[in-house]
């Protein structure tokens, strides 16, 4: 079921997708900065939903709860990636939009869930298994 937040992410991604990255007028920078700030706000809401689900499970991390959030993060990530194209266009003109750090931090947070979730999970599991195996051998 689509939540209101999902709907906002989807419709905002469509609006950002309709922007012309080739614009060079002054309002382009303002539009990009607005888009970045809005993506950060939507990311904050996703973080709150995520924290709420974790709290509902008594603070216990469960893979199925985490996986249930992946589609929303993927929608966010796909939409925010379109904004990055506009950021690159500005950077090529020597303009560094305001709010870069906040936006890119949110982008990496989303990437962990949207793109790299399985890789990270497998990698952490490998390390844990190796550690357990060494501890058993040492004992």
């Amino acid at each position, binding site marked *: 079921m689509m939540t209101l937040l999902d709907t906002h992410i989807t419709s905002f991604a469509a609006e950002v997708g309709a922007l012309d990255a080739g614009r060079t007028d002054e309002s382009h920078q303002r539009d990009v900065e607005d888009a970045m700030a809005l993506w950060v706000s939507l990311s904050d809401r996703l*973080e709150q939903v*995520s924290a709420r689900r974790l709290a509902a499970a008594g603070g216990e991390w469960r893979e199925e709860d985490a996986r249930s959030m992946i589609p929303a993060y993927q929608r966010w990530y796909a939409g925010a990636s379109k904004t990055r194209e506009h950021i690159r266009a500005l950077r090529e003109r020597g303009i560094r939009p305001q709010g870069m750090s906040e936006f890119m931090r949110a982008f*990496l947070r989303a*990437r962990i869930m949207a793109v790299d979730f399985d890789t*990270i999970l497998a*990698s*952490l599991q490998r390390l*844990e298994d190796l550690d357990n195996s060494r501890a058993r051998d040492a004992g």
Partner: protein
Amino acid sequence: VSAPFLIKYDDAARRALEALPAVLRVRIERALARLAANPVGESKRSHGLRPRGQLFELEFHLDGSDVYVDVMFRYSQDETTLQISNILVELG
């Protein structure tokens, strides 16, 4: 002063690091040495429903680009080693 932690890379993290240009790799390795000296102060627990681990966030400027890095790691059971699971890099 306590001894720094050792650093061990999982294959995924090693591959990510080795795929980077040398100048970038060196900067990240220097930052990881800083992390090894003070992992409690330099990192935080991963938030929300992200896979459980420690997260080290790094940000620096290099050759006209902003570089944003997330390093995921866990402590070894004997608390001597930082086991780096993944390194994610984005240029802003």
